[in-house]
């Protein structure tokens, strides 16, 4: 039976009078690649840091790999590979030194894998970290996150600010690792088309609240646009459930729905539509429609 790698129940984090995250409940199935989407300030990093007990919840319970994130944080961090958005390494260390330094913290550290990652990512062992580019530093971070053979890989928007070539290299390394090792990946990113390539499931956070949580396939099937042309004027209401947004002009309307089903075109024709066209949306378009519309 498949268990959840991450369980979040009623998680709230408050800073002053503002809720960075409000009453979030979420499960991440073991073995999945789970993408967490949201605009800047949506609460993604706060949620991720709370999983590692780097941020303390105001309310709620978080479990990682069956362990309580507050009580067992050291054990959790020993089984999780974590790559923050902007990893701050000791600038005076060389790549070899940061590898040796990290190795000391993990029982499961695989020196052979670490060496192979350095090789594959073309990382210069004797260069100091302060001399490396942002992209190369991100690759160092990825090697550090993968070398302990973690059961769960948590990536907090690791490719932001990287050029497309490095981003592709980075994602390929993640995908290769998942294919080789299995395990769960929980990551947030702004690069939605990249997430679309790899994610099994996604959740969208908006202003600290969960808007959507579904498998990518289900999400893409359920969130669609319908272009409707009427012979006369466009009606004020539409007999559809899960309507996210309506864009209209004199004879035409574009409806975005979050609960599309195959009966919707017939329903619209039955209400006077002259023509109905169903349009598939990319993940990025779904995200934009979700955070702009009122789900």
């Amino acid at each position, binding site marked *: 039976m498949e268990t959840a790698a991450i369980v979040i129940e009623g998680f709230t984090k408050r800073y002053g009078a503002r809720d960075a995250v409000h009453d979030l409940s979420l499960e991440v199935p073991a073995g999945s690649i789970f993408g967490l989407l949201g605009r800047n300030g949506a609460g993604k990093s706060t949620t991720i840091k709370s999983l590692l007990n*780097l941020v303390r919840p105001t309310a709620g319970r978080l479990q990682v790999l069956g362990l309580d994130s507050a009580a067992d944080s*050291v054990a959790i961090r020993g089984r999780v590979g974590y790559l*923050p958005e902007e990893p701050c390494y000791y600038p005076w260390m060389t790549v070899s030194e940061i590898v*040796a*330094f*990290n190795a000391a*913290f993990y*029982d499961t550290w695989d020196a052979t894998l670490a060496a192979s990652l350095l090789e594959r990512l073309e990382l210069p062992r004797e260069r100091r970290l302060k001399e490396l580019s942002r992209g190369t530093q991100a690759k160092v971070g990825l090697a550090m996150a993968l070398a302990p053979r973690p059961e769960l890989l948590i990536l907090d928007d690791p490719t932001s600010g990287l050029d497309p070539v490095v981003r592709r290299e980075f994602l390929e390394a993640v995908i290769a690792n998942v294919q080789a090792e299995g395990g769960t990946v929980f990551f947030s990113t702004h690069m939605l088309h990249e997430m679309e390539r790899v994610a099994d499931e996604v959740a969208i956070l908006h202003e600290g609240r969960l808007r959507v949580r579904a498998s990518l396939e289900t999400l893409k099937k359920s969130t669609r646009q319908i272009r409707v042309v009427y012979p006369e004027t466009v009606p004020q209401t539409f007999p559809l459930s899960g309507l996210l947004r309506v864009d209209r002009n004199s004879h035409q309307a574009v409806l975005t729905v979050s609960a599309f089903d195959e009966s919707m075109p017939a329903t619209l024709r039955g209400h006077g539509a002259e023509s109905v066209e169903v349009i598939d949306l990319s993940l990025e378009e779904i995200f934009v429609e979700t955070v702009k519309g009122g789900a």
Partner: protein
Amino acid sequence: MSTHHSLRTARALVWKEWREQRPVALAGLALAILLPLILVAATARAPRPLDAAALAGLLPGLYLWFLWPLFAAATGASTFAGEIGDGTLGYLLSRPVSRPRVWLVKVTLAFLTSLVILAGALVVAWVVGLMAREAAGSSFAETLRVGGAANLLVVPATLLLFASSVLFSTFLSRSMNAAAAGLAAALLILAGLFALWDTLGLEPRLALTWSMIDIALAAALALLGSLLIFSRGELLRGRGMGRLVAMAGAMVVGGSGLLAIPVVAWYDQLAPSEALALDRLLSPAGDAVVLTVTSPHRQSPRIWVAHTDGSGLEHLTAAGAFDPSMAPDGRWVAYFSQGGVLGWPASGLELRIIRSDGAEERRLATLRHDRQSPGSSATSFSPDGNHIAGLMGSSLVIVPAAGGGAGDAVTVRLDDTPLTPWQLLGWSATRREVLVLSSQWREGSQSLKLEAVDGVTGAQRMIYEGKRPGLPASQRPLSGWSRVPLVAGGQLLLVDVDKDRREPIAVNACYWSPVISETADKIAYALCLGEKAAAESEIHLRNLLTGDDRILGTLPGRVSGIRPSPSWDRFVVGLSQWGDVDVRTAVLLGRDGTVRALPEGSLALGWHGRDHVVLTRSGQDPWIGLMEPDTGETRTIFPQ
């Protein structure tokens, strides 16, 4: 987590910390090496360039009191602040290692770095000391020993500075800010502790050990605060600074106050051996003993009052007070105070006056510290109680007891070239003059000079100058001298201070401890007997009006003092030597020749009414008590 893994993690943390602290350690050691060269170069063109011996004497203290605290603050402040600022702490805390362990390694390594710097610096000082020894006989150990207790106090003080810097480093993102805040907080804590000790009157009996423990506890509290913040905080990004600073400040200051509570609670349990009682002075009515109590290291003296009826013991002054004298009516006590804030020495000594019930206090004059002519110090009321004289070294100040402007004070600089130190004998009976006596051993004999200083004009008048005096009068400063007994040139003289006349009482013998009655009609003295001038002492009582001289008794040994009872019918005789043996004891000698031994080691302060002798014992077990002369029963009045 396996032991092997724990060790590996600890080793990695230690390696990282040492690599980060290494530049600080090297900077500290470089400064330690350069400092002597800088000092020599800086003073090369001065009128008195720093020579090797002076340098050797200067360096250990400089390293211990300046370099070590400086770098302890620096290493403490950089423990977390730098890593909070550049974000690397967040990275470290996302590794699978507990925060207390990270904290422990970082704080330990930071303090060890400061110790490495200190050790290196002391090696430099030791080497300089070795080099200087060739030139001037100075040595490293001797120089450190001179610092004595102060050198011990620097340890908890530096620990406090370090801990305070660590505390602020836990939530500030810049090391410099943490160091500045740490220094301010440490000074605040020290000031708070001193103020608390001062308010509660603890210093006289607060031994150095207690001070060190209290300061070290404050340091421990700061470290505990840092550990709590570090362990329970979030990513420690230096946010919410104002609130955190206020919290830390309140915790440190409030906590330090709480820490003193155990000291207060244990105060009564402090052993008497932890205090020294000096300057014991019986009030004119005999109802109270005014004494200066200080720690065994003679720090923070404070004047206390012990009531002879056993009703209580209470401190009268703030810390830094000594040399008390009582007004003729016993209502006021004059004393010297080191002044300053919270017991911190001021630039001058203050002559103060306080009511004997502590209800009112006034500063009367300030005397500049005179390092060129150190000597004895004393205060004395005039016979009418309206003026006070204070002597410190060669500076004499005479001031109205009621206070007044600076113009009312007369300050006299006594001649300090051939004859020092000066002693304040007290006031003459009929004139408003202060009697001062100077004596010095010179080439095997003693010179002696007795002068009178006019309390209004400051004019000095020579009363007596002798080249071969014996012991001068050894009484405490008295009001109302009309005749001063002096032993000089094998004679017992009575010098009339008003008439510039001296009268030999006895000649061609060896005399000790003459004491004259306040009415100047009687004198008691000891005559040495035997070939060795201390084998036996014959105690004499002479009526100065009739010339009748009678022997009260013969005692073995050398007499150190005679204390007559108010009616001069009994005498407490102190003995300082018995044959060739030094002793400190006293006997009670009746006018009828009866002798009663006083408790071993006791000296007589004086008489309490007609019935009781006030006894004192000093040294490591100070004691003051009353003895009933007929039965020999004693009652303790200090310590209580």
